[in-house]
């Protein structure tokens, strides 16, 4: 199990810089989230939520509770950055942040998933053994070196994000049709200098192909020491462009810009640390050692973890439907900004005994964002149908049945009927199984 390459002695600096950057970024994005009123907007105001996988225990905690939870996230992020009670901070951050993400899949974003799993990895890593308050409290824990794998897992995780985002782009619409870029770019014609170019077809192709090639290969150029500086220039170019062109993606570009620093070697990281404060390299040249049984368990755990990481993006292959259409196996696969999809769904509640039919005003139960997300994601429709069944039963309707009439437009093709409107969605279950009631995607549209 002790593979030499994995346990090689490496400088701790890249890990420390990653810890500080990650903690600081999470701290500021939590503050930003709060300042924009999104805690209330997304986790207090709605009357109904869509927990991931229908896990009903993942409930919002009310206004006070949610704000306290976000304080916990912010404080633990700050503690991660400062390396203060690091192990406790990473565990608390991972649990609290992940809990928030489980409450409502409406708010699912790939970079939130990234934050969750990276904070999980950080729990296992000795990133507080240098340049931290924990070291200041107890200098005996200070280490200048760590086993190579502790930095390697972060690099591998970054690599997985990039490569899978690239693989996801290898599809007909993206490469041959330049969709959705052809749709999205004209909406950016207000931009200075480049604005007039946004209507040009070749620009859409340039963006599509450049994006795909960048995602597929950037990590290999980052690994190679010779190409690393140029590769990082491309990291900056790519992510700053996406931040300008698609401000809607929020923090993601910055997370990747800062995260990609982990590929640089120690000299760069020592320079960064010197900018941040006094960081002497002198002193005992200690290396952090995991006890062999602990290290073996961690290897086993990480083995399973990365195996899952590699398998999850391909799980869509076991579903018969078109992935973008049915979204079965879509999440947790680094499919970022990949398609233009919108929908419109009308729900009807029927009382079988009387034959009475009640159309549902979705906006009484859902926020505009929830309604938008639900209208293109089948598992959310089922969750909503279960909720409507309850609500209408309480209103005195006997055995309410819930039907939906939905239309979805994918990548600019004319909207088409999305689900079988004769299926009682209240009787359907949320899960990994294939949803037979999604109508097949018509390729010739």
């Amino acid at each position, binding site marked *: 199990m002790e593979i030499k390459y994995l346990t090689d002695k490496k400088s701790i600096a890249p890990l420390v810089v990653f810890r500080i950057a990650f903690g600081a970024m999470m701290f500021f994005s939590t503050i930003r989230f709060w300042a924009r009123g999104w805690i209330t907007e997304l986790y207090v105001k709605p009357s109904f939520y869509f927990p991931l996988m229908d896990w009903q225990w993942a409930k919002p905690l009310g206004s006070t509770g949610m704000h306290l939870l976000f304080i916990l996230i912010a404080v633990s992020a700050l503690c991660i950055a400062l390396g203060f009670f690091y192990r406790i901070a990473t565990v608390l951050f991972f649990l609290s942040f992940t809990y928030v993400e489980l409450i409502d899949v409406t708010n699912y974003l790939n970079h939130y998933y990234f934050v969750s799993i990276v904070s999980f990895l950080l729990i296992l890593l000795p990133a507080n053994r240098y340049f931290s308050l924990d070291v200041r409290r107890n200098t005996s824990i200070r280490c200048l070196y760590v086993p190579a794998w502790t930095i390697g897992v972060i690099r591998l995780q970054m690599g997985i994000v990039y490569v899978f985002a690239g693989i996801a782009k290898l599809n007909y619409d993206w490469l041959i049709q330049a969709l959705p870029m052809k749709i999205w770019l004209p909406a950016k014609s*207000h931009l200075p200098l480049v604005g007039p*170019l946004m209507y*040009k077809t070749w620009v859409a192709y340039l963006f599509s192909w450049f994006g795909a090639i960048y995602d597929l290969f950037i990590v290999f150029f980052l690994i190679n020491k010779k190409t690393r*500086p140029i590769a990082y*220039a491309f990291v900056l170019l790519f992510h700053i462009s996406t931040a300008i062109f698609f401000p809607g993606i929020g923090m993601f570009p910055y997370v990747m810009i800062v995260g990609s620093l982990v590929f640089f070697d120690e000299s760069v990281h020592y320079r960064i640390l010197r900018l941040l404060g006094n960081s002497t390299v002198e002193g005992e040249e200690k290396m952090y050692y995991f006890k062999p049984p602990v290290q073996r368990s961690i290897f086993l755990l990480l083995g399973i973890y990365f195996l899952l990481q590699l398998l999850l993006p391909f799980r869509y292959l076991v579903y018969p439907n078109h992935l973008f259409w049915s979204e079965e196996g879509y999440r947790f696969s680094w499919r970022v900004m990949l398609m233009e999809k919108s929908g419109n769904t009308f729900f009807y509640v029927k009382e079988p005994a009387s034959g009475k039919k009640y159309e549902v005003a979705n906006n009484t139960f859902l926020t505009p*964002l929830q309604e938008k997300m639900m209208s293109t994601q089948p598992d959310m429709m089922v969750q909503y149908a279960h909720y409507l069944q309850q609500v209408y039963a309480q209103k005195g309707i006997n055995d309410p049945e819930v039907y939906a009439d939905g*239309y979805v437009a994918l990548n600019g093709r004319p*909207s088409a009927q999305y689900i079988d409107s004769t299926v009682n969605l209240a009787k359907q279950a949320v899960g990994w199984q294939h949803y037979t009631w999604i109508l097949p995607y018509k390729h010739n549209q």
Partner: protein
Amino acid sequence: MKKRTWMFLLVAACTSSIFYACSKGDNGGNDTGGNAPDAFKTAMLTNYADTLIIPAYTDLLAKLQALETAANTFLTSPSTNSQATLKVSFKDAYISYEKVAFAYFGPGGTAALNNSLNVFPANTKRIEAGIASGTYSFTVPVASDSIQGFPALDYLFFSTDAVTKFADAGAANRKKYVQDIVSRMKSLVTDVLSQWKTNYRAGFIANTKLDVGSSMGYIINQLAFEMDQMKGPRIGWPFGKMSGGTAYPTNCEGYYGSFSVSLAVANLTSLKNYYTGGTGRGIDDYLLLLGKSSLNSTVLARFDAAIAALQAIPEPMSASFTNSNSPYIDDAYTKIQLLLTAIKTDVASATSIRITYQDSDGD
């Protein structure tokens, strides 16, 4: 190290110069119709402000002035004759309002104009209580909405024994109540119009973005929103679509004056006009610019089908809800739903404008 730093700078310099050079290059290609694209959007938004929205407010203000004159004549000598004359002016003004209902953003949104002018059904009990006591306020958000505006006037002018009530013991209070409503409507519209003419217009035209809260974002969102209103409060709810078929005929727009169909037709016709931009540039031209001509044809056809279906409903709509004419309502309802889907799903998607009133990250 030095060599790599140089290469880093080289890539950075190259990329920025590419962007710069490209933007300086030929941008008068025929795919933008010989115009720089910003000029296209600016011209379109100018058309919206100058030939659609501002004239619509100007017209409404003029119609409200005419209504005030007719109302005063009626209040001075209430009779079925003066009531009939009043009805013409009232209907004119109400129909004119249907053309500004769309512009529920900017000054109109800030003033919550639609809430004060057209929340129906009117709360007749609270209106009568206000008249009886002589104390009422039109400025309490939400609570005041249903006791003023066109729906309240509709009730006060045209409900059964409306004429006699203006001649009975409480007539003085009732007349004052009417005058208070009309003057509030006039002052709200005057204010919104003057804001459009002074400050708002320039910002509206200059904002060529398409994000949430941009001018075009408002246009698409309001088209969808007004169609939702048509499907819900104007037709679906009173028809009983939400209530298992139990109709609420008195809840329809313009119930007492019995011209609900005319109002609905005026509303949807004006939405079509906002879609096409009238004779100037509109969303239809923008779709053509984007190469979406078949979508544009679909939308136009669905507009025409929905308007025709509405026109086919016999007045009064409230009676058609429950009598043998109800299939006409069902038909119009279905066609509006199709139109709504085209706007909310296809047009929003093609223009990449989000139908939401919320700002958030998304990927």
